[in-house]
């Protein structure tokens, strides 16, 4: 019995390129490759020729020139004297901010709505259906414009807060002002400022922030340890000790101590001149974009969640009930872990869509990547080829990162089949 017989080689004939299965696919691939390469070369040579005719070059040097335009509320220090590169980075950060905030809010809202649509409350389920259908079947651009306009038309302008007989007033104990330009919220002040860490490139992080981060992460780790201990106790004795107060304590006490140590206090925004100063003014462009993206994406996520839960057959919860497991535990031990597996893949695409849709920021004047690199920079420098290619590259990388992360998660929870 030969265990490693090597297939006999038949002599090669030219016709085998076409008629032999092995070579045929090779032939085909080579042809496709040549065609694709030729097409690519054709595009590139056209581009080179066009650039030559126009007397332009292909060069990213413009990124290091002075940008000259301002960006409201840059997440990192930025002035009009900075380079286009820095403006682009500000744009990327803004895109990321709105994406992350949007994904979190849309997930929360989407899950709530998705579950609510399954509720046996007739009225509420109908309302949620109306919400979902309205948002899914009307262009996002309209929702962005509508939300933006609602903010603009319904909320008072800042000067309504001014003077003795102001027509508008602040909320949350005079800490927050909703205006038709921005939402003014308090900033944090410290009486005992520990200074900040310079990360270079004029980016600084306050030591206080770092201290809080460490406290929170540490608290969370301790909480995990407590949870592990609780689990172990349960495994051994069968009953689970109540640990929520311990967790709460380790999560909050260090932070409270730090607040006391740094003398942290709120600096409420104050109406001064044209606008509120002292606090943080979150522009309505960002809020409207975030809200519209959230509402729009949540409608899709709601459908995904609903489908995910419906996909778990009724038999699963019945079996769980029959074992005497309470409805709440049934949800967390039986239904959700399974629904999650159905939900995650389409959820990834919704996150990706949200990230891509955030490029509609252009409609509300929020300076995201599209607004800086693909907008003003492109316009001022006339480097459309470079700007747009760079912009697409960045979007592509962000997409790939999101989907890679979620795919990893997905592969970990996959169901085992025969």
């Amino acid at each position: 019995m030969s265990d490693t017989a090597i297939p006999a080689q038949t002599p090669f004939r030219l016709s085998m390129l076409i008629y032999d299965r092995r070579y045929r696919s090779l032939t085909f691939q080579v042809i496709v490759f040549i065609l694709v390469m030729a097409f690519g070369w054709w595009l590139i040579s056209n581009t080179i020729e066009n650039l030559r005719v126009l007397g332009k070059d292909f060069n990213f040097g413009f990124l290091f020139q002075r940008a000259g335009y301002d960006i409201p509320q840059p997440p990192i220090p930025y002035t009009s004297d900075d380079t286009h590169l820095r403006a682009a980075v500000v744009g990327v950060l803004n895109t990321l901010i709105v994406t992350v905030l949007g994904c979190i809010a849309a997930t929360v809202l989407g899950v709530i709505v998705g579950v609510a649509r399954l509720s046996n409350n007739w009225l509420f389920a109908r309302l949620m259906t109306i919400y979902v259908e309205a948002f899914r079947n009307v262009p996002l651009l309209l929702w962005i414009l509508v939300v933006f306009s609602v903010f603009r038309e319904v909320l008072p302008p800042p000067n309504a807060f001014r003077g003795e007989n102001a027509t508008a007033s602040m909320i949350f104990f005079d800490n927050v002002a909703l205006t038709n330009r921005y939402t003014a919220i308090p900033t944090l002040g410290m009486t005992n400022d520990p200074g900040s860490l310079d990360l270079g490139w004029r980016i600084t992080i306050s030591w206080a922030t770092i201290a809080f981060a460490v406290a929170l992460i540490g608290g969370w780790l301790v909480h995990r340890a407590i949870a592990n201990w609780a689990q172990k106790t349960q495994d051994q004795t069968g009953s689970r000790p109540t640990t929520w107060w311990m967790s709460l304590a380790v999560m909050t006490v260090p932070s409270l101590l730090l607040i006391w140590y740094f003398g942290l206090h709120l600096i409420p925004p104050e109406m001064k001149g044209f606008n509120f100063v002292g606090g943080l003014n979150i522009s309505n462009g960002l809020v409207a974009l975030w809200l519209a993206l959230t509402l729009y994406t949540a409608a899709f996520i709601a459908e995904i969640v609903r489908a995910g839960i419906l996909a778990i057959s009724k038999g699963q919860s019945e079996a769980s009930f029959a074992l005497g497991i309470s409805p709440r535990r049934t949800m967390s031990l039986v239904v959700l872990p399974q629904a999650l597996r159905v939900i995650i893949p389409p959820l990834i695409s919704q996150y990706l869509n949200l990230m891509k849709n955030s490029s509609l920021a252009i409609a509300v004047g929020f300076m995201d990547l599209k607004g800086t690199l693909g907008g003003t920079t492109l316009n001022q420098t006339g480097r459309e080829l470079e700007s747009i290619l760079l912009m697409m590259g960045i979007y592509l990388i962000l997409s790939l990162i999101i989907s890679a992360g979620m795919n990893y998660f997905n592969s970990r929870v996959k169901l085992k089949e025969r």
Partner: protein
Amino acid sequence: MSELHAETVPFVRETMLPPAPPPTQEAGAVRWLRTNLFSGPVNSALTILGLLIVWFLVNHFWNWFAHSVWNAGSLSECRQIIIDRWGEGSTGACWAVVRERWMQFTFGFYPSGLYWRPTMAFGLLFVALAPVLFSESRKIRRIVLLTAAVLTLSAMAVLGAPTHWFIFAAVIFIGATVIAEQNPGRLLIFSLLFPFLGVWWLWGGSLWGPIMALVGPVLGWVAYRLLGRFSPILAGIGMILVPLLWWIFLAGDAARDAENLASLAIPAVASDRFGGFLLSITIGLSGIALSLPLGIVLALARRSDMFLVKTLAVMFIEFIRGVPLIALLFVASLLLNYFMPPGTNFDIILRVIIMVTVFAAAYMAEVIRGGLAALPKGQYEAADALGLDYWKAQRLIILPQALKISIPGIVSTFIGMFKDTTLVTFVGLYDPLKSMSDAVRASTDWKGIYWEPYIFVGLIFFIICFGMSRYSMYLERRLQREHR
């Protein structure tokens, strides 16, 4: 003792009990309210919350809707009427702008005398779709065709279509309805011709252009047939090359010469006259019609076992799906000219359609890939065992089934694409939502009108998209039944 109970329990029911009505609590409105609205504290709270939401919405918007004005020549006139009618300080909706400009929202700047042409094209679209989308149920087919016929013909009459075109449309509708009764498959010819006719009706000009374009595939087929005798590879190459050569070098001249010999021209309408829903629907439909074949090819390529082909397909799909449509539209408007040979300069609508197509094709490929993956492996094997080659197996066995499974996905891709056509506003085209509304506001009469155009356009989008999504859900349900 063991038999004790068994011995004592024998029981036979002599008369069957009739069904009794449920206890009163369990029926009627009380029960409905109890189970649907107030079945527990949480539920009651939700009901109250829901009522509050409804009350809030009604309270805020009712007045505005109730104070609607439909007849006015300008915004100031509107405001005056509202004040006259409902008193100082009252606000209301001024739908007069929609009434006055709805043709513009619908047709953009299309010459008003020719409005009937897009209308006819749109109506006949349903005939073209009949064998593809409504082929299964005779009842639906009838309803769709007849409704389309009545609506289109009356619209054409109102818009003043020339008599001969009116008769033409009527004949096609009647013919299609009759043919569809027997064998909707035969309408497929019309479906295949429709893209060419549709382009002709929309853009006008000489019919010879589309005809000559159509000659390309015919020549390709002839070449395939002729060369097929020598070698299938040669035939394949010929089938692709001959039409290409024809289109690039000969078709234009041939069309011109033919036009000179026998004129088949209707007034031409340039692309820059397209706007509003006409533009959206044109882009949307061309996008779907072109992205479907491209998506199929991409999906097949992605499932191919040839490494290179698969890699290229994956790269292409992931690239397109990783980039916002708006970036691709900017590519269309800013970069595409760089990529073309110097001196070529083609229509911005065409460029946008290309990018939208490419974008939709990547999504379509994923949808169709799902459909292909859902087919059992046995179908492939059975086709192989019968001696069908790859392409025949795909065409006759695999794709018909995979596409059917994918219809819901395809429809939702289409809905997404149709909504996304509003983004063309950012490259200077007159989409119905933003550009058209801005254009209307740019006139002194309607300066400052804000919500009404948006609501109107949004409502139309909603009706179209909601209709499509309901239709696809219906299809999904029916397919589920069939695949049981």
